């Protein structure tokens, strides 16, 4: 649906983005992660045809994004900017109506009413944008960005500054876009949000540091571990496991964290050994490092992720 090929962008001497390539498929949520200044917003602007690449190209459905095709291709893209950017003196309805007309919708009024209904803001339709809370403004901005039912949604920090309930609503909306076969490009610092919704992740630091599913990135960086929670102190059983040949065992209160990579021991073997040694096991589950650890390790391979 959307392809970025060797995208680079310079601003004078400064390199904002260098040699970034990836694809975005229909029905996929793709998250762009990276520190401030990593080139995330520049990437979004390049993909939406708002600025031109210094080199490389963007294609939407196989059609190259260029000065001539950009206005037409932009009609397929919904873009949520970092700031809601509503006209404060206009009402919510007026704000949306201008955009419905700018997108050339056949029935702008109906599209606006549908959006107000869908985002549960119909009762605020006649309020001026200046009167809205930050969360409501963000909701209106989201409604505006997908008013024309775009096939690709580019969302820059969609839950920034939102309370947990509003943030959950936004996540549900993002998931509903995926269900409807829309491609979603998410640009965020909120790793928890990415963990919950993203199918694939790209970590950016001017260049593309890594790309893949969250689990594939984890597997690439961290050895698989199993966490066993016992009904009694875990330390004595750590010794049992070490005697069984497991070198990477850590006890923390009633929990054991066991690295099983490079051993012949499987998780059922591990459980059996513990039970034979008299352990009462409450739970066993694979130990997945949070995405934050993956992210930090990718950006700082020499440093230590917690």
């Amino acid at each position, binding site marked *: 649906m959307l392809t970025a090929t060797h995208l680079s962008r310079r601003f004078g001497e400064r390199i904002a983005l260098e040699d970034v390539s990836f694809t975005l498929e229909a029905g996929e949520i793709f998250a762009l992660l990276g520190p401030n200044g990593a080139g995330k917003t520049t990437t979004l602007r390049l993909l*939406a045809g*708002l600025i031109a690449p210094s080199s490389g190209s963007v294609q939407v459905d196989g059609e190259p994004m260029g000065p001539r095709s950009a206005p037409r291709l*932009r009609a397929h893209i919904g873009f949520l*900017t970092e700031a809601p*950017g*509503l006209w404060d003196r206009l009402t919510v309805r*007026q704000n949306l109506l*201008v955009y419905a007309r700018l*997108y050339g919708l056949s029935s702008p009024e109906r599209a606006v009413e549908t959006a107000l209904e869908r985002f549960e803001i119909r009762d605020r339709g006649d309020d001026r944008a200046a009167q809205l809370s930050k969360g409501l403004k963000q909701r209106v901005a989201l409604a505006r960005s997908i008013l024309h039912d775009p096939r690709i949604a580019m969302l820059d920090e969609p839950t920034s500054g939102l309370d947990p309930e509003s943030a959950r609503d936004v996540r549900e909306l993002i998931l509903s876009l995926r269900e409807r076969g829309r491609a979603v490009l998410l640009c965020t610092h909120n790793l928890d949000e990415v963990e919950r919704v993203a199918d694939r992740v790209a970590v950016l630091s001017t260049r593309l540091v890594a790309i893949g599913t969250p689990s594939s990135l984890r597997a690439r960086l961290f050895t698989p571990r199993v966490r066993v929670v016992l009904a009694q102190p875990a330390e004595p059983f750590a010794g049992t496991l070490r005697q069984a040949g497991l070198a990477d065992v850590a006890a923390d209160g009633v929990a054991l964290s066991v690295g099983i990579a490079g051993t012949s021991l499987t998780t059922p073997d591990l459980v059996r050994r513990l039970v034979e040694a008299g352990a009462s096991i409450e739970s066993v589950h694979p130990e997945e490092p949070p995405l934050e650890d993956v992210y930090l390790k990718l950006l700082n391979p020499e440093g230590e992720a917690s």
Partner: protein
Amino acid sequence: MSRTLALLGKELADVRQNLTIFLPAMLVTVIAILLPVLIAIVVPAVTGERLSDSGDLEIALEMYRKDPSMQRLDPEAAIQAYVFQYFLVMLVLGPVTSAMSVAAFSVIGEKQARTLEPLLVTPISTFELLGAKLLGALLPAIALTVGSLVLYLTVIAIAAGDGVVGVLLGPRALGVVFLIGPLAALVALQLAACASARVNDARTAQQLGVFVILPIPALLLGQLFGGIELTVPVILWISLFLAIVNAGLMWLAIRLFDRETILTRWK
């Protein structure tokens, strides 16, 4: 065109919600209307000295004797007609001030509220965006021009001698108000819009308007103290000059309002 109209509707709705922006322009217009009324009507009435008896207005009397359209007026009314005709150029100040204010506040307001980027994501072209912005400032300026002219003529019809209004409805007066006025307003608003791309304070952007405002009273003084007479050809030359300046400013504005420039170079 439909996108220009969509955005123009927003611009005008925004202006309607912010009428205080017109206060300076209305103040200037009121002064521009009252000043000639004071000179031609109030002062002679208070002092009891008729304008036609004053030696200071010899030039006007001389022109009165030469101008066939004035022959049917009595000398006092003819001098009143000259005063009102000369001060007509001051009516251009109102639209110029209004256009500058609206343009500067519109562009800088968008910058401060960060409302331009969502707009740039839509299929709107630079020309459509700029067209809507310029029309959004120019239309109120033209409305102000028409309104102030109607008010000016009404005051003259009530207060001045017989036939003075009829003289003012000639091609010279209409040329000043409907050619020089809108063209000067367009220069002012394009200057303000271009300046607004580079600064973050509307007042700073408006200061450039001095380049448009100052020649207007200079034109009035030039008429009053001789040297310049706003004949129809002179009005047409001034209009041509303003049209050329406008074309140059439009060229500059299209470059400044280009998407990439707005997103990467506007401060």
